């Protein structure tokens, strides 16, 4: 499996990571090596096998633990915002989104 330049740019967009034109070729080459590694999975017979998403699922019965839908967190917004790049009146400032 080999990535085209378009595919690389699409993935970079989804991942919100800038890949400069100058580095695209090198990045693609390395990614293709990793894709070569993971392509080995294609030939494995997994008919009838359930996907496993929890580390203990194969052996133990695991349930997502739930709790009552009650507020249990204290308001610590000011503390959390102490290290923020830009805040105003309790809001995080970012470049304008809507024109």
């Amino acid at each position, binding site marked *: 499996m080999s990535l085209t330049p378009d595919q690389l740019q699409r993935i970079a967009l989804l991942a919100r990571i800038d890949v400069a034109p100058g580095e695209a070729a090198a990045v693609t080459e390395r990614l293709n090596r990793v894709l070569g590694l993971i392509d080995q999975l294609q030939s*494995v017979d997994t008919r009838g096998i359930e996907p496993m998403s929890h580390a*203990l699922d194969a*052996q133990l019965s695991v349930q997502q*633990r739930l709790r009552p839908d009650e507020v249990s967190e204290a308001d610590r917004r000011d503390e959390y915002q102490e290290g923020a790049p830009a805040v105003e009146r309790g809001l995080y400032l970012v470049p304008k989104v809507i024109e």
Partner: protein
Amino acid sequence: MLNSSLSELSAALAAKKISSVELTRLFLDRIRGLNGRLNAFITVDEEHSLGQARVADGRRAGKGSAGEAGPLTGIPIAHKDIYCTRGIRTTCGSKMLANFASPYDAHVIEKFDRAGAVMLGKTNMDEFAMGSSNETSHFGPVRNPWDASRVPGGSSGGSAAAVAARMAPAATGTDTGGSIRQPAALTGISGLKPTYGLVSRYGMIAFASSLDQGGPLGKSAADLAMLMNAMAGFDARDSTSLERPAEDYARELAMDLRGLRIGLPKEFFAEGVDADVLARVREAVRWFESQGAKAVEIALPNTGLAVPVYYVLAPAEASSNLSRFDGVRYGHRAKDYADLNDMYRRTRAEGFGTEVKRRILIGTYVLSHGYYDAYYLKAQKVRRLIAKDFAEAFARCDLIMGPTSPSTAFAIGAKADDPVQMYLNDIFTIPAPLAGIPGLSIPCGFDAGGLPVGLQVMGNYFSEAKMLGAAHRYQQATDWHLRVPREAAL
């Protein structure tokens, strides 16, 4: 003192032979002397550590409100810089979090704090825990105390180097694909990845949530047991934390090895493993046999698929976990950007290193529309096959043993060019986290060049006490774990 076990240090503190302040100073001096060369620590705050030491001394003297002193009260511990700590910055080895001041402590940190341990500093690590050599850190590579031109392994390379060089009596780490066990093997110390769910991941910066597990690194299995007694336990704030009756991880240290069935997976003793590594591991297994254990050949037929499975699942989960780093609320934010999207893209391009970006891109790809079934779903199915291999194996043996790593420590820069070469290092450590089972590495000798070799012990779910017991018996009869590297001579 620098070579003393945790229980010896504990006894010395209890008998007032040494104070925590003196003990902490001893290690801080050691760090000051060695860290410039080894780069094991990213942050050390001497005043903070000594302040905690004074509190611990007070507690041992019966003063203060923290309650009775426990075994770890006053003992200095180094923490991998992946654990959020309120008083000291948490960088995760990354430029993205280079000055991040966490507003809360990780559960593991809270546990050690309540136990009265002293935080010695935050150790260096591969960026966001992605790496097997501690070369991807924004803060520079860590050097192996056994040979400073070589890697200590990763991603908990700083913690491993710190313990190996006696800069800390013990340290915490995390293991997703081998990041505790492999650096333990390459630096000649002991390290444990517990069963998934035993150690809370709250405040442990996430890499791959279905694989990540926090664990201890130390000079011996007995020390690891003491550390696990402090670290493990239910935490409601981690939704994957297991509720189980409290256990004493030291309860089987005196175990009887007679009749113990040791499974040797033929896939772990095959071509591609260093001859010296295999020789040391076989010698260790022969020792267990001399004590009445029985070696049984087993098969883990899907071992060859473990690395590909991991390099689909871990990057996929990482791409999701690291999407929070966008420059909005904390961490690095780019200086110049045209709009919000641009801010995200530049922030992340600048803040993340090459390996991290690579893995996020792979992860994004395997989760994307049109590829999800072929890659991600497929890998989840093969993961179940790997887990089943272990279930079948444990019907025939009690513990599984083999090499932790196919080779000893390699030179810094040797595998920088080919990511796949680096990934194949993890072949023996990746299966355990995929199956959720525990894995341990202890030193079992040296290669012809004087570099440490690690013996990996894997057990069934929740069999840590048995694994530590077998390791402890071995360490009572051998002295590999007591050797100190020349680079860090005492």
